[in-house]
């Protein structure tokens, strides 16, 4: 055993396998470490700003359908910004978005987003759009909590805040929904995004 005091326990005998194990260990730690910071803070800030704009535009629309369309466009833009900034941050950290941390975050958040989209279409077709904001807040919160389970503690905390806003939205009149969405998708994203960007490098 040549690398007997190294970071990898004695499992394999050949020097080649030993060296491979060392490199795998480094890569594994780097991937898991990057998962702590894979969420892009500045991306969240930009998403928050677009959400604030969307909330204002939605609030001056004449019909619920028009407001819904504004939020649908905002969601599409937000997803694009999130994916792009996730990619940039992963690249900056020296890991691939399709490897460990980025993939884990996207795969755990995506089911909630897809469920939200499907329920939105179903509720819109049924003419019941009053509960949409609650649905979005709760599903996005749940997705953020699971997506951030292996990340820094601030990410699940963000998810909890969204879920709490979702609960609050159950007791708020529909006319205040745009304000609530502005506070959550806008305010929470900007606040938490700035904190992440300052503390975890971008």
């Amino acid at each position, binding site marked *: 055993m*040549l690398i007997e005091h190294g970071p990898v326990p004695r499992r394999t005998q050949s020097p080649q396998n030993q060296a491979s194990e060392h490199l795998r260990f480094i890569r594994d730690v780097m991937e898991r470490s990057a998962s*702590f910071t894979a969420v892009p803070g500045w991306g969240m800030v930009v998403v928050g700003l677009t959400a604030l704009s969307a909330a204002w535009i939605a609030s001056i629309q004449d019909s619920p359908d028009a407001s819904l369309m504004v939020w649908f466009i905002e969601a599409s833009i937000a997803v694009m910004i999130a994916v792009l900034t996730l990619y940039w941050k992963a690249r900056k950290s*020296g890991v691939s978005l399709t490897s460990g941390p980025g993939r884990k975050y996207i795969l755990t958040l995506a089911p909630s987003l897809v469920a939200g989209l499907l329920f939105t279409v179903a509720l819109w077709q049924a003419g019941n759009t009053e509960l949409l904001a609650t649905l979005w807040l709760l599903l996005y919160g749940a997705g953020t909590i699971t997506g951030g389970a292996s990340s820094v503690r601030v990410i699940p905390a963000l998810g909890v805040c969204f879920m709490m806003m979702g609960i609050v939205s159950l007791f708020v009149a529909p006319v205040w929904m745009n304000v609530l969405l502005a506070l959550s998708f806008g305010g929470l994203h900007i606040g938490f995004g700035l904190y992440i960007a300052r503390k975890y490098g971008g």
Partner: protein
Amino acid sequence: MEDRTVFRSMGVLQERLDPLIHARVRLGIVSALAAGETLSFRDLKVLLSTSDGNLSRHAQKLEKAGYIECIKSFQGRMPLTEYRLTPKGGVALRSYVEQMEHMLQVARSATHSRGGHRHETSPQPIESDY
């Protein structure tokens, strides 16, 4: 290449390995900071599944060698200890990875020279752009 020659070459290469990094927790700390920029003591502890005392001891060695930088502050009233990789630490990790890759190459060339009868599992190339 004969096995003895390979093992002798490996021995020489091993002697060149940086003993400060060539320990599980210390290599873990340096690798984690290379990808994570700044990590708190608690984050590192969770990431490396180690105890407070063990992490503290190894972090102190790396800090003393100038491989990592310790930043102490307060989060509210709670003290917060964070670590960051220094340029010297980054160079040390890159060098360590290069040495490991070199050892792999030596072992591979030895395998090929024997006719490739022994098939070892090859690792995927690790990104060295930290």
